[in-house]
């Protein structure tokens, strides 16, 4: 049985006098209406005397339509059943989708998944190991314990369980997205089979036919809905397709998902961009997967964080997708009763073990047989979910709840040969619900056909409707010859025959679509990256303001440098601060930005949207003009305000060196951020590196006097190379004013600095053998700072080398180190 009324008497929780209940799918067709009417008229009978009060106010026209068929309704009253229908109609409006071009069934057999959590390198975890030895190590956990299931094309299957039950793990394992956690000694072991059309699930196969909608929507906040969809269409759809066709498909998907009215609204969701609603965002995420026409769609908690309406809309979208021939598998946490009924199959997991797998209609019946009838006026899903949750609040509760869960798991294992949702006993009640399911399918395909006409205008017309009708026929045929698709009645054991033979799976099913070429990917990514920069207006303005403020601050302090002896030191000060101030800010902000961009990048890479190289190059080239612009915004005001030489080559050398320095620090930041994919650690490492590059730059310490063991640092420090290059550029061909020589002083006092002169030396000065000018020109200043042998060009080349090194490091890290956001 299930919700269906014909079997109500069988359930002990329902009083025998209760009239038949409504069938599971309300508002699907006329049959259900008549059932409803009988029921609700019957329900309202005992209270009808008081209805006079209720019906006296103005009854809205919509709800007042008299239903001639419900003879039992008291005359003059608004017939209750119609009112209820109005509510139900409003919620049951299933979207219709283009049929899937492929169909893939999923069989999971005896899946076990054990994970050994890694040892985090933090004080707490290490302390535990040090004090408790092996017992302090994290213990392996069995996340999935002998899980089996089958989901057929056309079915919407939900995995339900409280947090920690392993539902997302199951989804991830099937979708080949499972990853053992970070840390040392982490590992995992997986046993059992996951079959797609009878063939083993490989990463390539599931990627070719599967789409995965992650729990968090990681869409670029600044782009509009249409931009997001058309980008995915262009980059991922077959390269043989014409561009207009791809765009039309993107629009059709937007129409199918009811996103037309927000097509030009930004996604939003970040602190700065207001955008579409949560449900719309979720549907855009689904849309990006839909464009690839997946035969299998995974959705991890598609309703979390959404209100009831939106959640229902999202699930009915998923159901529509399933009805169009896809295999849809989602996890869900505590769905409402109306949402729960939308699923075809449900798996209830507890601590990685299956408590129930099978048709939704049979949940109540199954658990009633297991000794747990569902109380009235409560959502069976909630009730059974609680039943299969281990309550950790106290030891006593844990013991009792564990016992219940164990009993349920044992009952399930005893009653299923292998978990296909096939209960061993076959009773008439069963047949009833099967008949309902069959009916529902037929109705669905009828609805399909009728709505197809409406949607034809939106979807790319011709082939769409043809495909749909073909599909409908297939479905009806399946229903006709007793193939109970929603029941998953796979009676013949798959262990006996090779699944591949039975199911006729072939590699043909898993041929991946060849998306845009690398060059085209680069072009699209480049355009998108540029668009990002311009659309993130507040970030751009902030960066602009900060850069200008820094440039002006330095420029003002060094305003109008003179050419006397003290100005020598000022000039070194200028070169030092110029090569450290902005680069330091750049390092901090780049690490933060890289971290902020990581989730989108990770998701898109997981979806196989593009290859790494074009993405990487596009990003660098798109950012380059901005990097150059900001660098000039910083360096030009300084140069002009300080009144440095307006010689063309010196001027340009100054700007170029500063740009190379800033770019090198940006590269170091992205290198570190990608090598160390956690924000706190990455900022620490980047900060430490910068300090180690800054100290040996030659301004703070005279490098010739520095301990030999560390002096080499100055040879690899980009700050040193910048400081030197800027100094040399500045001091070369420079001359400084000299104080008067210490001759002929009136009162016999020597000028400052010359107090210690011997009379012989004084004579040498007088004769011109020695000069009174300690730093007469730039060359001697450079000598003082041990920089006379520095070549600006060489230093520039070195800065480029630093950049190339860290950018390569970044590329390799993006390729080989998991960027999973944490």
């Amino acid at each position: 049985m299930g919700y269906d009324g014909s079997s109500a008497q069988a359930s002990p929780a329902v009083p025998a006098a209760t009239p038949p209940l409504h069938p599971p799918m309300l508002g699907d067709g006329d049959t259900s209406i008549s059932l409803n009417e009988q029921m609700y008229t019957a329900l309202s009978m005992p209270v009808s005397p008081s209805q006079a009060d209720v019906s006296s106010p103005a009854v809205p026209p919509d709800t007042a339509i008299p239903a001639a068929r419900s003879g039992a309704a008291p005359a003059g009253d608004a017939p209750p059943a119609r009112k209820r229908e109005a509510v139900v109609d409003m919620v049951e409006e299933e979207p219709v989708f283009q049929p899937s071009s492929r169909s893939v069934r999923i069989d999971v057999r005896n899946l076990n998944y054990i994970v050994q959590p890694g040892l985090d390198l933090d004080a707490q975890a290490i302390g535990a190991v040090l004090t408790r030895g092996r017992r302090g190590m994290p213990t392996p956990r069995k996340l999935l314990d002998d899980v089996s299931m089958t989901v057929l094309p056309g079915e919407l299957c939900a995995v339900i369980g409280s947090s920690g039950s392993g539902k997302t793990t199951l989804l991830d394992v099937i979708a080949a997205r499972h990853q053992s956690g970070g840390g040392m000694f982490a590992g995992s072991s997986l046993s059992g089979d996951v079959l797609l059309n009878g063939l083993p699930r490989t990463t390539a196969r599931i990627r070719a036919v599967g789409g995965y909608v992650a729990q968090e929507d990681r869409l670029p906040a600044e782009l509009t809905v249409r931009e997001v969809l058309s980008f995915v269409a262009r980059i991922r759809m077959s390269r043989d397709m014409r561009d207009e066709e791809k765009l039309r498909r993107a629009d059709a998907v937007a129409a199918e998902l009811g996103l037309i009215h927000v097509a030009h609204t930004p996604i939003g969701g970040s602190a700065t961009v207001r955008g579409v609603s949560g449900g719309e965002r979720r549907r855009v995420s689904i849309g990006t997967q839909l464009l690839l026409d997946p035969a299998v769609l995974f959705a991890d908690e598609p309703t979390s964080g959404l209100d009831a309406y939106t959640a229902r809309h999202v699930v009915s979208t998923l159901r529509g997708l399933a009805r169009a021939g896809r295999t849809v598998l989602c996890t869900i946490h505590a769905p409402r009763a109306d949402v729960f009924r939308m699923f075809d199959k449900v798996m209830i997991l507890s601590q990685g073990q299956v408590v129930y797998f099978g048709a939704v209609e049979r949940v109540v019946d199954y658990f009633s047989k297991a000794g747990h009838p569902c109380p009235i006026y409560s959502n069976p899903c909630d009730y059974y979910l609680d039943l299969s949750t281990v309550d950790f609040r106290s030891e006593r509760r844990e013991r009792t709840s564990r016992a219940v869960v164990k009993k349920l798991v044992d009952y399930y294992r005893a009653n299923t040969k292998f978990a296909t949702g096939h209960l061993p006993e076959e009773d008439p009640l069963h047949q009833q619900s099967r008949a309902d399911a069959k009916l529902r399918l037929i109705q669905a395909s009828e609805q399909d056909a009728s709505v197809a006409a409406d949607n034809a205008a939106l979807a790319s017309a011709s082939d769409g409707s043809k495909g749909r009708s073909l599909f409908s026929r297939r479905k009806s045929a399946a229903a006709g010859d007793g193939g109970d698709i929603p029941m998953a009645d796979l009676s013949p054991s798959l262990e006996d025959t090779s699944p591949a033979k039975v199911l006729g799976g072939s590699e043909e099913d898993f041929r991946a679509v060849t998306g845009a070429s690398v060059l085209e990917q680069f072009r699209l990514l480049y355009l998108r990256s540029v668009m990002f920069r311009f659309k993130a207006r507040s970030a751009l303005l902030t960066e602009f303001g900060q850069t200008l403020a820094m440039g002006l601050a330095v420029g003002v302090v060094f305003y109008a440098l003179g050419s006397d002896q003290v100005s020598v030191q000022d000039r070194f000060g200028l070169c030092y601060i110029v090569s450290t101030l902005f680069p330091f800010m750049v390092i901090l902000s780049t690490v933060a930005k890289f971290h902020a961009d990581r989730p989108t990048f990770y998701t898109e890479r997981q979806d196989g949207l593009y290859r790494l190289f074009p993405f990487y190059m596009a990003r660098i080239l798109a950012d380059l003009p901005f990097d150059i612009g900001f660098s000039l915004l910083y360096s030009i005001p300084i140069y002009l305000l300080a009144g440095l030489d307006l010689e063309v080559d010196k001027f340009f050398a100054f700007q170029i060196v500063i740009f190379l320095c800033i770019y090198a620090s940006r590269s170091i930041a992205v290198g570190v951020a990608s090598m160390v994919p956690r924000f706190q650690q990455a900022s620490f490492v980047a900060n430490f590196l910068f300090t180690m590059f800054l100290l040996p730059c030659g301004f703070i310490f005279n490098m010739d006097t520095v301990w030999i063991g560390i002096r080499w640092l100055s040879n690899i420090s980009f700050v040193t190379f910048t400081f030197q290059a800027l100094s040399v550029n500045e001091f070369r061909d420079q001359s400084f004013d000299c104080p008067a020589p210490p001759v002929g002083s009136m009162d016999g006092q020597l000028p400052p600095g010359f107090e210690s002169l011997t009379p012989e030396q004084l004579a040498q000065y007088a004769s011109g053998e020695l000069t009174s000018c300690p730093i007469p020109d730039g060359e001697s200043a450079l000598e003082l700072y041990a920089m006379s042998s520095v070549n600006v060009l060489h230093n520039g080349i070195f800065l480029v080398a630093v950049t190339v090194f860290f950018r390569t490091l970044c590329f390799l890290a993006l390729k080989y180190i998991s960027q999973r956001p944490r």
Partner: protein
Amino acid sequence: MCANPALFSRPGPRRPAGGVDTAPAGYVLQDDHHLKYLTVREVLTYAARLRAATSIPRDRIEARVQETINLLGLRNVADSRVGGSGIEAISVRGLSGGERRRVSIGVQLVGDPAVLFLDEPTTGLDSFTANTIVATLRALAQRHQKTIIFTVHQPRSDIFALLDKVLLMSQGRAVFFGHRAGLIDHFTRAGFPCGLYENPLDFYIDTIAVDKRSLKRMADAESRLLYLLAAYDASDSKAALEREIAVAGSSPALAPSSDLDVAYPDSNVLLARIARNLARSPMDVLDRIYMLPFVGILMLLFMQNVGNDQISVQNRTGLLFEALSVSPVMGMMNAIAQFPEHRKLFTRSDSRDARYSGFELVSAYFLVALPLGILASLLFTAITIYPFGLQTGWVRFFTLFGTSILLYMVGELLGVVTIALLDDQTAANNTSSLLLSSSLLLGSGILRSPLTAPSWIGKGLKYAAPHFYASQLMFVSEYQDLDLTCTPRPGFEDVLQPGFCRFPSGNAYLTMLFPGAEDHELRNWLVLGAYVLLMWLLTSTVFTIVGKLKRR
């Protein structure tokens, strides 16, 4: 969605209000903010003490806290730390979401309010935990005669079963108010019977919600709503409510609140709370202690004894320059890393019911941070002076240490004030770094000598920079009466012209680069000290204003 039902759970007789330490009402906000390193007992104790008058004896507060812990079923976690929420939950593990929510309720409950308001107490919790929270609330209402009113979004049927009274709202209008049992009956009579295996509230909320997705739907829903409103007006529940209102109108009003509102708590309580939270986190304490000396140790890698020749002048100057620039930056970084949680607690919940001002918060935080800052500065100064061979002596040591700690304090307060104004760690970091760099540029006298700078810097702007005073103090301390030799160290003979000695003594250096600095020692100390005081006042003022704005 505007169909949030507000659910009432209220016992019949109201207890006499205005007990000795009874707050009239408590309000539990939707999100939980607690200092993450405190234990449950500590959080509750401080909450009680922060809202209680000093006169209440300690043992009574302890008893009240224990009672609250028992009431909320927190006994087995009473001495576990609360832990971080959201992303921080990974780094600072602690209580589960449900337990954290209980602690939030406990923070209100220690005041023993007669009425407790809760805004969506079940949001963000799994269904199981949500149920236990509401069950606890029910027990409070039934056994302790409290009036409990909370809003809830999508309650499950098991939660529905725990309620006494229900108010269903749509578009700001009451669609139903009355006993839970009357709800199903009412809607069934009105023609909206709920399915047997269906959650009645889900169904009714859908029924009364106005779907704005299309005009037609909106019109349908509006007319349905009008119909239901009329049905409610005519119902027994409405009549019962009117009768109750008539009775309540004649009964005496709730007495004004007790003596608690008048007295201010001991501000040591706040200090103790912040100190304990910090003391519980060895990493945070360590960060405050090691970061500054760590820079000193890094410098030691490069340079050991600076020597006394002419080249030592550059190294000496570089060393002091680093000391000048690093001290305030470290203070600022600590503040930006550790102050936000206090800001959050203050602006989001404490400013509403705990009795302390922005000034007290800033002062208490600052007083807790100071000893660790002093320790860090002492270590840093020791590292700067001895291995590098700078001039020794108590006065010199104290001068270097004093300037370092004063700058550190300026940095810390700058961090606090930018956090108060911007409420974003990255933005606060960038802004305060930029301000400190500007001050260093203008004031240090190392990057650009004040002698050559244009007069509007040399005579004007530089006086605004704290680094100016600190720099004079440090350089005078180090260079005054410093013996410098004119004989170059081995290997550097050809760097300088023979006989030419730029800085024959430390005093010559000062005359040349910091002229007149020796005469201003007192002024420098006073101004730098005044700077810290001013920053303290400014930060407190900003905080008071921010707290007031947020309270609205």
